[in-house]
């Protein structure tokens, strides 16, 4: 085309027509010719020339924008002319496609502006879709279809939402586009895949119509034709389109699953054995990655924001996972990840591991399936898949891959107790099962992990500690199993003891500030916290050797480079766990009760913390830990699977373990830790309240003030005293025993410790007895006081009742008086009125009688007035009395008045 353009340019130059004209002027002239040219040939030439000018020419692109109406009009009017149609479509496509020169173009991208301009025009989409329609008037010309699709794709790139709307509004819009997937011309088909990719992205309506119109069938057909994952870039496009169709769309996922497309889909991940043993072509790697993205999408419930159908989303993802695993996808993924050493591409292996973790996590049948799976190891022998994955998790060079492998093991252990116990059972020391199993990777899962854990290099040590954490997490049985299996017959002691020795060695090495070492320390501490929590034998193993507690104190105080806060905090948390668990009533399922004669009490640990670190300083360490970004932003779900990027501090060092801090602590862990802190606070508070510094059991820590709860405290103290007495007795026994074999100098130190303990215990016991008596006294006092108060309260109540009765009597009396006075008044009025009427009506002759009557009346009136005065007096007395009693007399009077007013109405 460029040659053509040069030729045209030369032609133009020779003709002299284009001399000195800019590209934009030329475009304008051409548009003019297209619109006004009289002859079809002239218009055709102009279109062809316009197309050439537009090639890689931002200036021309900018100029042609204003001419879109002309071109669209020509498209409509000259539909019969295929050459013309094709030229205009191609020109339009060129006008909206970004080209390599536009990046150097200054100002706004003309292609984007043009795309915006065209998309805004409501006519464009129906006009273009019409070119795709089969039928007599539609152009069957391949180029027409090709450029139409190109143009639509460019428009979609500019603003997919607007185009999606326009396509949906056009009758059968999507349906016509879907037909393109079956186009006999590969170029058109491939363009159509790209177009549908942008159209289906986050448009559930188009996704569904596409699925209805057989998009899945088309895609799988293309994949098959292109030799599945071994194909070219079209395979990648198809898989991306598939992801777009399935994303956040339960209906489409259901259809994909129900119709049996999954069985075809899993073929994508099947690579012919040994085909890519040495190297993997880049495109195949990308295709595999795309296929695994689709797999992950199918096995992950969509974001909760997408429509409140969480339950359905979960069910759908679960059904997808079940179907995929049933169809053997685990085997394909294992072959990619670890089979024969894995595919020679680290990102592919990593993603395969991430996929496996997604598929098995929380689904016991899948976890069991992985537990039973075998892979062909590098030495072409069959090995348990989990062990091969362990190998990767321990020794992969790439941190992300190791993290992904650890994620699989974490996923295997999560909520799958049988699996954890199965792995725990493999920790038998190599002396018993030293013969390699079937010539595969030597040893067992457990022995391999233990070897790394107790090895010299800090990096594998950190990884191994992280893995063992998952094996024992939330599972008391596997905690004990690992402890027992690893200690049976091993001269160096149980694995837990060896972990502590590793910690001590690292402390002694003086290199604890170096990132790999501090990481290992951190991981070991996390493991020990998990292990000792809710597992009495592990706790005993942790605290039995005398050197361990001082070591933990040291860990809580020393500096560890950039991880100082974390390590100090975790060590403090571990001490907290010790204090906590020991202060609880002894319900230990100790395997061997006689093995721990020197059980340290929880308050002793607390005391030691108080004296060596100081309580305030101790809690500040845990607070500092909780404020670390790793904790503040802990991921909500399980660690190790989602966050594969190592933290910045570790990226530089390279050799540092892949278990990066951000993914180590999950939200549940953080929650647990803050609870631990609160409980420790209570424990410490109740401990500090005692003058002796002795702690109370946590359960009673906050109730010491209330007399009625003293009873509980007393019983608890008595229990503790009993426990201490037993300890004391045991210590005495042991002392005697030891004194018999004093010839052995090695026991000297232990003996001393024992003595110290015995003394301590005795002192504590005496203290408790003292306290007990004091408390009993207090209780009696309190009880006496309570009796006193109760009688006082009774008295007060009686007085109150009496006063109330008095009040009521007075009120009644007053009422009666009021009624009486009212009656008297009424009579008075009556009398007055009769008096008046009689004097008027009867006249003089009745005067005498009237005078007599009057006299009688007035004497009656006098009587009444006296009576009233007496009443008033009584009222005054009553008022005074009532006021003394604190009654609001006015109110009372008013109320009485009201009551008196009522009856006449009734």
């Amino acid at each position, binding site marked *: 085309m460029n040659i053509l353009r040069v030729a045209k340019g030369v032609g133009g130059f020779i003709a002299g027509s284009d001399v000195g004209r800019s590209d934009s002027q030329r475009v304008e002239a051409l548009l003019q010719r297209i619109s006004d040219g009289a002859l079809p040939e002239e218009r055709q030439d102009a279109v062809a020339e316009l197309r050439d000018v537009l090639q890689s020419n931002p200036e021309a692109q900018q100029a042609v924008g204003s001419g879109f109406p002309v071109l669209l009009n020509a498209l409509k009017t000259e539909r019969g002319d295929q050459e013309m149609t094709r030229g205009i479509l191609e020109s339009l496509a060129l006008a909206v496609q970004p080209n390599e020169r536009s990046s150097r173009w200054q100002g706004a991208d003309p292609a984007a502006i043009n795309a915006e301009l065209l998309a805004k025009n409501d006519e464009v989409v129906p006009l273009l879709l019409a070119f795709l329609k089969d039928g007599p008037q539609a152009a069957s010309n391949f180029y027409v279809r090709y450029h139409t699709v190109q143009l639509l794709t460019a428009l979609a790139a500019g603003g997919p939402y607007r185009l999606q709307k326009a396509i*949906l*509004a*056009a*009758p*059968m*819009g*999507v*349906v016509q586009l879907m037909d393109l997937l079956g186009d006999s011309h590969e170029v058109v088909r491939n363009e159509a895949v790209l177009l549908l990719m942008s159209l289906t992205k986050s448009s*559930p*309506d188009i996704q*569904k*119509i596409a*699925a*209805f*119109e*057989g998009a*899945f*069938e088309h895609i*799988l*057909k293309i*994949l*098959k034709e292109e030799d599945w994952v071994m194909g070219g870039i079209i395979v990648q496009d198809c898989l991306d389109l598939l992801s777009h169709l399935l994303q956040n769309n339960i*209906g*489409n996922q*259901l*259809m994909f699953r*129900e*119709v*049996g*497309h999954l*069985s*075809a889909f899993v*073929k994508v991940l099947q690579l012919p054995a040994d085909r890519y043993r040495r190297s993997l072509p880049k495109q195949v790697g990308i295709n595999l990655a795309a296929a695994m993205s689709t797999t992950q999408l199918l096995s992950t419930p969509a974001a909760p924001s997408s429509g409140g159908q969480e339950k359905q989303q979960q069910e759908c993802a679960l059904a997808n996972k079940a179907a995929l695993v049933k169809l053997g996808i685990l085997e394909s993924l294992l072959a990619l990840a670890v089979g024969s050493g894995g595919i020679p591409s680290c990102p592919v292996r990593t993603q395969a591991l991430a996929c496996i973790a997604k598929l098995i996590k929380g689904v016991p049948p899948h976890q069991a399936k992985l537990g039973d799976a075998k892979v062909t190891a590098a030495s072409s022998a069959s090995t348990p898949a989990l062990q091969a994955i362990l190998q990767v998790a321990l020794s992969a060079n790439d941190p992300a891959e190791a993290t992904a492998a650890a994620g699989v093991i974490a996923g295997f252990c999560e909520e799958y107790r049988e699996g954890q116990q199965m792995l725990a059972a493999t920790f038998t020391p190599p002396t018993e099962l030293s013969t390699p199993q079937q010539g595969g990777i030597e040893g067992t899962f457990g022995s391999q992990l233990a070897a790394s854990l107790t090895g010299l290099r800090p990096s594998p040590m950190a990884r191994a500690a992280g893995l063992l954490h998952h094996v024992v997490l939330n599972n008391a049985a596997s905690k004990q199993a690992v402890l027992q299996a690893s200690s049976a017959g091993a001269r160096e002691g149980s694995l837990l003891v060896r972990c502590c020795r590793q910690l001590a060695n690292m402390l002694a090495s003086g290199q604890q500030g170096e990132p790999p070492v501090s990481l290992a320390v951190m991981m070991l501490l996390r493991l020990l916290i998990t292990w000792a929590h809710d597992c009495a034998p592990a706790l005993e193993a942790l605290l039995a050797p005398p050197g361990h507690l001082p070591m933990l104190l040291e860990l809580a105080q020393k500096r560890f480079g950039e991880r100082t806060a974390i390590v100090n905090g975790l060590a403090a948390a571990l001490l907290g766990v010790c204090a906590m668990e020991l202060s609880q009533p002894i319900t230990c399922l100790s395997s061997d009760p006689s093995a721990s004669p020197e059980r340290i009490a929880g308050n002793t640990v607390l005391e030691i913390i108080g004296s060596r670190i100081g309580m305030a300083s101790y809690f500040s360490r845990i607070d500092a830990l909780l404020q670390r970004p790793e904790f503040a932003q802990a991921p909500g779900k399980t660690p190790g699977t989602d966050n594969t990027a190592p933290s910045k501090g570790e990226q530089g060092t390279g050799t540092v373990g892949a278990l990066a801090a951000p993914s180590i602590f999950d939200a549940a862990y953080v929650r647990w830790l803050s609870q631990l802190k609160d409980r420790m606070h209570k424990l410490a508070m109740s401990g500090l309240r005692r003058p002796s510094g002795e702690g109370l059991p946590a359960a009673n820590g906050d109730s010491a003030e209330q007399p009625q709860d003293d009873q509980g405290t007393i019983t608890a103290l008595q229990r503790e005293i009993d426990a201490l007495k037993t300890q004391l007795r045991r210590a005495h026994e042991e002392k005697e025993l030891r004194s018999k074999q004093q010839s052995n100098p090695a026991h000297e130190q232990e003996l001393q410790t024992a003595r110290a303990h015995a003394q301590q215990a005795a002192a504590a016991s005496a203290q408790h007895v003292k306290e007990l008596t004091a408390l009993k006294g207090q209780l009696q006092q309190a009880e006496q006081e309570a009796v006193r108060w109760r009688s006082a309260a009774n008295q007060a109540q009686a007085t109150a009742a009496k006063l109330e009765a008095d009040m009521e009597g007075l009120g009644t009396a007053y009422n009666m008086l009021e009624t009486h006075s009212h009656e008297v008044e009424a009579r008075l009025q009556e009398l007055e009125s009769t008096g008046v009427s009689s004097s008027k009506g009867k006249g003089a002759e009745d005067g005498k009688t009237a005078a007599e009557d009057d006299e009688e009346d007035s004497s009656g009136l006098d009587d009444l007035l006296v009576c009233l005065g007496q009443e008033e007096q009584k009222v005054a007395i009553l008022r005074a009395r009532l006021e003394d009693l604190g009654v609001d007399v006015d109110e009372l009077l008013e109320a009485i008045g009201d009551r008196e007013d009522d009856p006449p109405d009734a």
Partner: protein
Amino acid sequence: MSYAYLFKYIIIGDTGVGKSCLLLQFTDKRFQPVHDLTIGVEFGARMINIDGKQIKLQIWDTAGQESFRSITRSYYRGAAGALLVYDITRRETFNHLASWLEDARQHANPNMTIMLIGNKSDLTHRRAVTTEEGEQFAKEHGLVFLETSAKTAHNVEEAFINTARKIYEKIEQGVFDVSNESYGIKVGYGAGGQAGGTVRPGEAAPAKSSSCC
């Protein structure tokens, strides 16, 4: 999972006539008295058996609201069967049937089998359209007719299965070119050629690799 044929259905009709409930009753055998308004289109699937042949039904339940019409029209062309539903207690839903039918005739393939469904037959006391009227309308327009109740499941199975039987008959008669999937019919395993195959249920399907794609 293997099937002799796959038929695509759509369910159309005014909003609130019980389209989604019919689908739910047919696929999940349950009734949901309060159903959210269907947005766009929902999908359901079930396997049925006709004359010993496994037939997979893929059903698209469309939104009845006018605002979704342009989207739902996209489903007409590729469907082999349509359930056109009205509500016997709401006369206007019956009156709109003609416009639905016109829409379907315009966009669907001419051989699409349409079943007229008078739903909510359990609500006899509120009936506003008689059975005879429904029958009459179906007869005039060449449709199959049934009254159903998604609530009691009355005639629900029949509605879907009779439609499938009708389509199956048309295939037997050679009305469809089943190789053209745009009619909403797909031949799967064990169809035994175009018509009249003799694959019985339980019999191993002919080993035909990846005919599902």
